[in-house]
C-alpha cells in the first residue's frame, strides 16, 4: 500500500556517521558537574534579572536626577531628598502631577525552550521583550513638564505543554 516502502527500507540501511569518541565522555563530565552544583541552572535568569534591574535602577536614577533638576529650575526643590516616597510627595507639593506612563514594545524574541530548576524541570518558553517606558509629570500652575524615558528588558517564561 505504501509506494515508498522500498525507498524507506533503503534509507534505513544508511547509518548516520558515528559520533566522536570523546562526546560521551564530555557529556558524562557535564552531568557530573551538574550534579555537584545544585543550582547550575540552564536558565540565564540571574543575568536577565540583573539586566532588568540595572535598567530599572538606571531609570530610577535618571528619574531622581531629573526631578531634582526640575525642582532646582523652579526654585522649589527641597535641600535633601531622602527617598522616592519623599520625592513623590515633594513633586506633588511642588505642583507636579504624574500624567502618564507609556510602555512601547519595540522588539520581541522567542528564545526557545528552557528548563526552570524551580518548576520540576518542566519546559517553559522564554520570550524576551525590549521596551521603552516613558513617565510624564506636569505642573498645571507653571505649565512645566518633566518626561523620563528609559529602556527595559523583560523576560517572560510561559509554560509549554506537550501532548
Amino acid at each position, binding site marked *: 500500500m505504501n509506494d*515508498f516502502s522500498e*525507498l*524507506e527500507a*533503503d*534509507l*534505513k*540501511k*544508511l*547509518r*548516520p*556517521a*558515528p*559520533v*566522536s569518541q570523546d*562526546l*560521551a565522555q*564530555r*557529556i*558524562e563530565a*557535564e*552531568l557530573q558537574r*551538574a550534579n555537584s552544583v545544585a543550582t547550575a541552572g*540552564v536558565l540565564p535568569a540571574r543575568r536577565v534579572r540583573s539586566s532588568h534591574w540595572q535598567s530599572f535602577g538606571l531609570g530610577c536614577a535618571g528619574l531622581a536626577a531629573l526631578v531634582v533638576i526640575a525642582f532646582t529650575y523652579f526654585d522649589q526643590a527641597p535641600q535633601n531628598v531622602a527617598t522616592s516616597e519623599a520625592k513623590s510627595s515633594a513633586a506633588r507639593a511642588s505642583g507636579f502631577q504624574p500624567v502618564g506612563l507609556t510602555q512601547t514594545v519595540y522588539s520581541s524574541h522567542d*528564545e*526557545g*525552550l*528552557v*528548563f526552570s530548576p524551580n518548576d520540576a*524541570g518542566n*519546559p517553559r518558553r522564554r520570550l524576551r521583550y525590549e521596551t521603552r517606558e516613558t513617565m510624564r509629570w506636569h505642573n498645571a500652575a507653571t505649565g512645566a513638564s518633566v518626561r523620563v524615558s528609559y529602556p527595559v528588558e523583560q523576560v517572560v517564561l510561559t509554560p509549554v505543554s*506537550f*501532548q
Partner: protein
Amino acid sequence: MEVASHEDWQICFAQLGPALVLFARRWTQSRADAEDVVQEAFVRFWRHQHSLENRALLYATVRSAALDRLRRDQRRQRREVIAARDDETHYEPEFASDNESEELLAAAVARLPNEQREVVILKIWNELTFAEIAQALEISQNTAASRYRYALNALKKNLQPHE
C-alpha cells in the same frame, strides 16, 4: 540509584547519539558544532527528565540549543563582517556509506530542502512518529506528514535513472 541513572543515559546516548548529531547538523556549520549542540542539549534534557518518555522534548531541546548557538554565531559573524557568505547555506548531513548506491542516496538526502530533510531525519533515523515530529519542530502533524511525503517523492525522482 546514581549508578542506574548513569547507565541509563549511556544506553540512551549510545542509541540516539549519531542520529541526534545528524539532526543538529541542520543548524550548524560543522560536525564538531553539531556535537557541541547535542552535548549541551542532552545534558540539559537528561538533568531534568532522566528518561526518554518524551522523545519529542529531547529533539525540541536539541533544536532550541542549536538555534541559540546559531543566534550567537550570527551575532558574532555580523560583528566580524564576514565577506563571503551564502544566503541559503546548505549543510549536508553525514552518513557512513559503504557503497556507491548508499552514497547516491545520502547525496540525494543532502539535496533535500532543509524543512523536508529534517522531517526525514527525524522519521527514518530517529524513528519519531509524526505527532512527535510535530511537537519537536512546532509544526502540525499534517505539515510533518506532507513534508515527509514531498521528501520521499523528491528522493524517488532524484534516484530514478536518467535517460
